C-alpha cells in the first residue's frame, strides 16, 4: 500500500510540475527537447518505486536520483536538535537563577537589621515559582533612631518580624510575587 501511495504521490507531483513547466516553455525548436527531458523525469517517478518494490536486492542506478533521507536518520537528527535545545534552555535557566539570586541578595541586604542572607530561587517556565530566604539578623544593637526598625521589649522576636515584613514587602513589590511564594527563615530558628 505504501508503495502505491509513493508512486501516486510522485507521479502526481511530477506531472503537475511538468505540465506547469510546459506552460512556461518557450515556443521554438527547443521545445521538443525540453518535453523529452520532462518525460524522462516522469518515467523515473514511475519506475523507481516499482523497481524498488519488486527487486529489493538489486542495486538500481536510478535509485540515486530519488534518494531520500531515511526516516530513522531524520528522527535521530530531530532528537539531537531537541536535546541541544534543552541543554541551551537549562544553561540559560541556571544562569538566570544565579543572577537573580545575587540580585535579590543585594536587595535584601539593604533592609535594616539584615546581616547576611542566602536566597534560593525556584524557576519554572521562565518565571519565579518560589523564593526561599535564610536570613541572619545583626547582633549589634540597633538604635531607636534607626529608620524602619523598631525594637520593642522582646526585641529579638520583634526585630525578626520587622525584618520579615520588610523583606516580604520589598520582594513582592520588586518581583510581583504573592505572599505564599516567599519563604523566610532565620539563622537560629523561628
Amino acid at each position, binding site marked *: 500500500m505504501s508503495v502505491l501511495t509513493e508512486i501516486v504521490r510522485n507521479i502526481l507531483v511530477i506531472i503537475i510540475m511538468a505540465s506547469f513547466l510546459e506552460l512556461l516553455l518557450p515556443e521554438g525548436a527547443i521545445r521538443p527537447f525540453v518535453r523529452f*527531458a520532462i518525460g524522462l523525469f516522469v518515467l523515473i517517478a514511475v519506475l523507481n518505486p516499482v523497481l524498488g518494490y519488486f527487486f529489493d536486492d538489486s542495486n538500481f542506478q536510478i535509485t540515486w536520483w530519488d534518494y531520500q533521507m531515511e526516516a530513522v536518520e531524520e528522527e535521530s537528527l530531530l532528537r539531537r536538535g531537541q536535546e541541544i535545545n534543552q541543554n541551551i534552555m537549562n544553561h540559560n535557566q541556571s544562569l538566570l537563577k544565579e543572577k537573580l539570586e545575587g540580585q535579590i541578595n543585594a536587595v535584601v541586604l539593604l533592609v535594616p537589621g539584615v546581616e547576611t542572607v542566602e536566597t534560593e530561587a525556584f524557576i519554572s517556565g521562565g518565571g519565579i515559582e518560589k523564593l526561599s530566604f535564610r536570613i541572619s539578623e545583626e547582633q549589634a544593637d540597633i538604635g531607636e533612631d534607626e529608620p524602619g526598625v523598631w525594637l520593642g521589649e522582646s526585641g529579638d522576636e520583634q526585630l525578626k518580624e520587622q525584618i520579615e515584613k520588610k523583606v516580604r514587602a520589598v520582594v513582592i513589590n520588586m518581583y510581583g510575587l504573592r505572599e505564599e511564594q516567599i519563604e523566610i527563615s532565620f539563622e537560629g530558628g523561628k
Partner: protein
Amino acid sequence: MEIAQIVGLALVTTIMLLILRQEKPVMAIILSIVFSIVIFTFLMGKMTSIIGVMSELTRRAGINYFFLSTLLKILGVAYLAEFAAAICQDAGEQAVAKKVEFAAKIIIAVLALPIMVAILESLMELMPV
C-alpha cells in the same frame, strides 16, 4: 499593474526600433538586447516566487530536489537560447540563431543524458542476458 508597464515599454521600444532600423540598425539591435534584459530582470522576482512554490511542493511530496533543479536548469537553458536566437534573428543573422539553438539542444541533451543512461542501465539489469 506590471503588465501595463511591460506593454508600455514594449510599445515605446517597438516605435523606437522602427525608427532606428532605418537610421542606425546597430543601435536598434542594442536596444532590442537592452529590452530583453529589462524584461528578464523585471520578471526575475516573479520567477523566484514560482520556483519557491515548486520547491516547497517537491519538499512536501518528499521528492528529491535534484528533479526540480535539473528541470529548472533545462528550462533556463531553453529560455536563454530562445532569447539569444530571437535577437540574432532580429538582426538578420539566421545562421547564428540556428547555432544558438543547436548549442541549447546539445546542452539540454547533456543535462538529460545521465537520467536516460540510468533508466536504460536499470532496465538492462532487469532483462535476462
